[in-house]
């Protein structure tokens, strides 16, 4: 950073001398040298920050009107929808925002997997990311319980019951979680408390995530290190504007859901108030949990299913060491790239199977898809690094760019 920020005004100088916060923001949000070849898959970091802040702000206002009481929760949500100024807008943004958050996080993770962003020296960024994902799952699940509809209640019943699979202490732990002998208002109140707390924990982890990112700097589509200043551009305005452009396109999709089909991602049963005496015919989790739900059901044993589901997330944290290849980007990994797309297809298939009844062919497919999910990480990833002959890497980020231009120039000459 040759053009380091120097405070100009007297006030800025006074503040910055005592707390160099202006220098910090200037260095990390303005001048930060960023590889110049990042594509649009790199815009999801900014989009996710937007999602988190949107959820926190809308959630804060919703919490001013929501009542975490088993007898009042459902009506208080409808009060928000009917009587609070723009309450319907806040709630629909918050509910659909959860789905948009997960769409963005899945794409963000898929990008990281494709371009090897989890590899040395960025392992910790990835691992912090896995913890953020885990907290997101917990937060989203608890949030879905709060309207106290039928799916809220029975989803909470099923998921909290998974803890009873723990040997010896299962029942005690489950009762402790419930604060009762069944799912009741006691659980609703503590879920509300935790649902309010967790986004701030996520926020803290996001700061660590970005801090850890700003030590080595961004990975890039070539997956090679930055070698000279020519390879980078300052974050502002190049990536600020590019990120905002992607964000606005993302917001168009978001607004499409919020304003024109706000309930399409939810389940109609959640507009029926929770009734402990009436089990819904089908208890389905939110769409973003379906792949993990399919893994849970693929194992014919309750404890085994729970272990498989938890492992499916936990295994992600070990990817930096499971992948034996030194080459980061799949652009230069002809063999692994095919398995990468197989994994993506496998995950989508699991999501579909999670929405179907686990019988017959669906159950068999579910088991095969679960098997591949784990094999991919514990077998395919370590082995391919040894077998595969990667394509030659460019010498620098600027090199493939220049050669492309040269090609253009050449083709211009021949034409």
């Amino acid at each position, binding site marked *: 950073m040759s053009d380091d920020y120097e405070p100009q005004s007297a006030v800025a100088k006074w503040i910055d001398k005592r707390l160099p916060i202006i220098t910090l923001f200037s260095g990390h949000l303005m001048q930060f040298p960023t590889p110049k070849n990042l594509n649009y898959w790199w815009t999801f970091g900014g989009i996710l920050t937007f999602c988190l802040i949107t959820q926190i702000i809308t959630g804060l206002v919703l919490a001013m009107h929501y009542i975490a009481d088993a007898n009042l929760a459902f009506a208080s949500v409808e009060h928000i929808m009917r009587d609070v100024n723009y309450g319907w807008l806040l709630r629909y943004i918050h509910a659909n925002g959860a789905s948009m958050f997960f769409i963005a996080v899945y794409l963000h993770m898929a990008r990281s997997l494709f371009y090897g962003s989890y590899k040395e020296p960025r392992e910790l960024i990835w691992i912090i990311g896995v913890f953020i994902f885990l907290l997101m799952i917990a937060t989203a699940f608890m949030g879905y319980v709060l309207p106290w509809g039928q799916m809220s209640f029975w989803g909470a019943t*099923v998921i909290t019951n998974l803890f009873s699979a723990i040997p010896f202490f299962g029942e005690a732990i489950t009762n402790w979680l419930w604060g009762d002998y069944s799912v009741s208002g006691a659980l609703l109140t503590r879920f509300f408390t935790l649902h309010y707390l967790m986004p701030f924990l996520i926020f803290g982890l996001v700061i660590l995530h970005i801090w850890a990112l700003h030590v080595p700097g961004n990975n890039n589509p070539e997956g090679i290190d930055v070698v000279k200043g020519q390879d980078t551009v300052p974050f502002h305005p190049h990536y600020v504007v590019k990120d905002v452009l992607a964000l606005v396109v993302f917001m168009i999709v978001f607004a499409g859901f919020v304003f024109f089909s706000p309930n399409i991602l939810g389940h109609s049963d959640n507009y029926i108030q929770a009734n402990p005496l009436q089990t819904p015919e089908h208890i389905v989790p939110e769409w973003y949990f379906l792949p993990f739900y399919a893994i849970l059901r693929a194992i014919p044993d309750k404890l085994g299913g729970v272990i498989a589901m938890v492992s499916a997330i936990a295994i992600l944290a070990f990817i930096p060491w499971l992948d034996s290849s030194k080459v980061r980007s799949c652009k230069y990994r002809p063999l692994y790239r095919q398995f990468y797309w197989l994994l993506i297809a496998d995950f989508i298939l699991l999501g579909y199977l999670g929405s179907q*009844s*686990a019988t017959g062919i669906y159950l068999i497919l579910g088991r095969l898809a679960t098997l591949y999910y784990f094999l991919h990480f514990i077998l395919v990833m370590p082995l391919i690094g040894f077998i595969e002959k990667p394509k030659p890497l460019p010498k620098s980020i600027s090199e493939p760019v220049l050669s492309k231009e040269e090609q253009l120039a050449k083709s211009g000459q021949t034409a």
Partner: protein
Amino acid sequence: MKRINIFALMITFLFTTSFAFAEGEMHAPMEPDWSFQGPLGKFDRAELQRGFQVYTEVCASCHSMDLVSYRNLVQEGGPEFSEKQAKAMAAMFEVEAGPDADGEMFMRPAILSDKFVSPWKNEQEGRISNGGAYPPDLSVMVKARSGGADYVYSLLLGYEDEAPEGVTLDDGVYYNIYAKNQKIAMPQVIYEDGVEYTDGTMATEVQMAKDVTAFLAWSAEPKLEERKRIGFKVLVYLIILSFLLYFTNKRIWRDTSH
């Protein structure tokens, strides 16, 4: 006993999950044209007003609408009755109020700020009057059923006088082709000329079912018109902004080979 229930639940959860309509036990509902469907759809005021009449004269003898107030009938985007009309409609019902200065509860006519008065004192009374099946609250019914307005409309019209051969119906159970397993505890309530519309519209079965379903769609989503109106502006704004950003971005990256 509790353990068994939870176990049974787990089994249900693990092995039977799928979306409704998936198992062929229900007929796909009819799909009439709704004025409020589509990105620019709005409610038809006259239809909502007729629908309110059908609700009041037919449905309301068994079904409550706890989440809707009489004042909502006046609000923009709804049936938009005049305040005078809505006050008169509210005043036809009595609600318990109090306690007064002597500590006594008393009855007074309902006013605009009151919720729709329920036909039952409590759920138990509703149950015992209906053979044990409590008629569900209709406030958000259209959003609480897969299939939405199409389903509610079809269900109202799906009754057949006689069950096909081989189907036995218990007492208090009726045959309806759009109900789950074609069985439902609600009898047919929509009959031709079941109401006399104040606006002179012919009260055919189809007309009544459509009107009351539109009314229920409004009660489930009273801010639908405002939502679509704002949504349209938001989309226009975002799309224009995205074009501006696209060209800004292009300009900024103009001198960088990448």
